[in-house]
């Protein structure tokens, strides 16, 4: 579409098909060798570029932090991303549920990394609202929701809960890098990464930084209505572009059972067939559907595990089935 649309002003802009950050800046001259190239600043294309000198001087080669991250991540067996194009579909709730379910097995060590920098919900959901993190010579120690459940989030670092983190991309990327590089995760069987909505800096960074260590898969969360599915399609497109295996889709808030009359109704109407139809269309597994249970929200606000509090809820059953399926897909069961 865009290729045919002449741009009214000279802002460098094209719908991105180059995904993982290349090292060629948007406004670079044609044939720029890339800032990390050994030829940076030295080719004929660099002549006249205002950054020629800087490029010629700077350190070359790939990001020196990547091997450090790889070494740190060697003690983590499985790395799972929880993604969704749309906000408020239940990524954090699902992340928390997945982690609580995994940690119910005392043999397993589980970690949650919250890379939602501007709206971290994980501390509240895990009952760690007032926790802070400790720094030691070997790095930051995560907070613990229970003995085998480590949690890391920017929420632990804010002086006050209501402080807004007004950061542009590069600063967020720096913190994510530190979460991977400097946090003493220890031996983990699972690291579940909760992400913000969308497909932007945080997502690119986590993929880029874990490129060497490897991501085992992504779980996509959606709600049944088309507006949400539309954004999930974008997220699937993103996963395919950057090469993250998709474990499957979870349809959250799928139907509501009225507590007084037990009548079932659809709050978010699956006018286009919901996640089921989309999963089929795109050849992705539907891991399960989680019905809305008003008690989920209540336990979340209290930082308790919904699965422990209401084991009889249909939502709990759905959650546990999904967690089993994820473990099977990862080859752990």
């Amino acid at each position: 579409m865009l290729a045919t649309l002449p741009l009214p002003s000279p802002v460098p802009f094209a719908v991105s098909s180059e995904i993982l950050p290349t090292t060629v800046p948007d406004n670079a001259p044609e044939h720029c060798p890339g800032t990390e190239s050994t030829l940076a600043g030295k080719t004929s294309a660099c002549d006249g570029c205002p950054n020629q000198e800087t490029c010629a001087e700077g350190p070359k080669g790939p990001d020196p932090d990547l091997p450090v991250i790889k070494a740190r991540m060697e003690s983590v067996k499985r790395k799972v991303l929880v993604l969704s194009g749309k906000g408020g579909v239940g990524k954090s709730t699902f992340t928390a549920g997945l982690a609580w379910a995994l940690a119910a097995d005392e043999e397993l060590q589980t970690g949650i990394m919250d890379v939602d920098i501007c709206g971290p919900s994980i501390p509240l959901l895990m009952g760690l609202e007032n926790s802070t993190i400790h720094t030691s010579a070997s790095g930051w120690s995560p907070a613990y929701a229970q003995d085998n459940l480590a949690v890391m989030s920017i929420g632990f670092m804010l002086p006050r809960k209501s402080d807004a983190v007004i950061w542009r991309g590069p600063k967020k990327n720096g913190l994510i890098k530190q979460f991977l590089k400097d946090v003493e995760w220890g031996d983990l069987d699972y690291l579940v990464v909760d992400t913000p909505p969308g497909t932007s800096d945080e997502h690119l960074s986590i993929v880029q930084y874990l490129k060497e260590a490897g991501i085992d898969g992504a779980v996509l969360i959606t709600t049944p209505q088309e507006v949400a599915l539309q954004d999930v399609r974008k997220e699937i497109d993103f996963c395919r572009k950057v090469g993250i295996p998709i474990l499957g889709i979870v349809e959250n808030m799928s139907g509501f059972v009225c507590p007084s009359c037990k009548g079932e109704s659809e709050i978010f109407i699956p006018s286009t067939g919901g996640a089921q139809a989309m999963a089929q269309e795109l050849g992705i597994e539907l891991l399960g559907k989680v019905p809305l249970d008003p008690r989920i929200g209540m336990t979340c606000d209290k930082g308790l595990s919904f699965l422990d509090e209401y084991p009889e809820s249909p939502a709990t059953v759905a959650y546990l089935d999904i967690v089993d399926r994820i473990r099977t897909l990862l080859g752990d069961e």
Partner: protein
Amino acid sequence: MTSEGQVPRSLSNVRHILLVLSGKGGVGKSSVTTQTAMALVNKGFNVGVLDIDLTGPSLPRMFGVELHQIHQSRAGWVPVTVYPRTETRGSLSLISLGFLLGSRSSSVVWRGPKKTAMIRQFLSDVVWTGTLDYLIIDTPPGTSDEHIAIAEELRWAQPLDGAIIVTTPQQVATADVRKEINFCKKVGFEIVGVVENMSGFICPHCAECTNIFLSGGGEALSKQLDLPYLGNIPIDPRFVEMVETQSDENKLIDLYEKCELKPIVEGMVTKVLEQNKPARI
């Protein structure tokens, strides 16, 4: 591109600017934007809607204009006209990145600087037709690049009417919304009021109202922070149904006439109008 100190070009014929913000995603910013826009149109105002949620633009779908395209004129980009002006209603036009994307499933994977450039372009190269009474800016969740960019651009577009803050009742949402309010204070956006969305669900079987996400969080928040409270909007599955079933013959704005949310949103819009904010031009 706007230069320092100048009113962004696209805003020169805009009388009032409202932003719709929320720290948390999925609380209904776009649905509040849609309904507020329709309420203003119903009052006879010419309304423009600018969608700066670049990685997840949902407004084209909300207004049923997904397949439309932005046209290019010599002066700049021409927004999509959702509803033309009629005797009783004002006009409604929309600009969104969604229109520039090839297919509805392609993702926009942009880092910050690119998003900032795009927002600047939206504010300088879009030619709104005639004079707009209201420009409503729908934002993505969070307090990051898009928000900083829009705040920077709007610095030269004072006075603004301010921001409508959308929240849902549960604590997880109000916690994020507090951050957004702090952001507004930092960048000097006035807060027009707080809206609590998804406040209860009316069971279609027994008409019992269940508070899926508890209730009252938004009102408590606005009281505590001394902000105007605009009201609460319950969940109405029929509104979502209207959005999904609208067509050229059955326009959303006509379907909306029968929606139970309409009087609620109109009440909120009246509260905003009663604040009598000065017009920019």
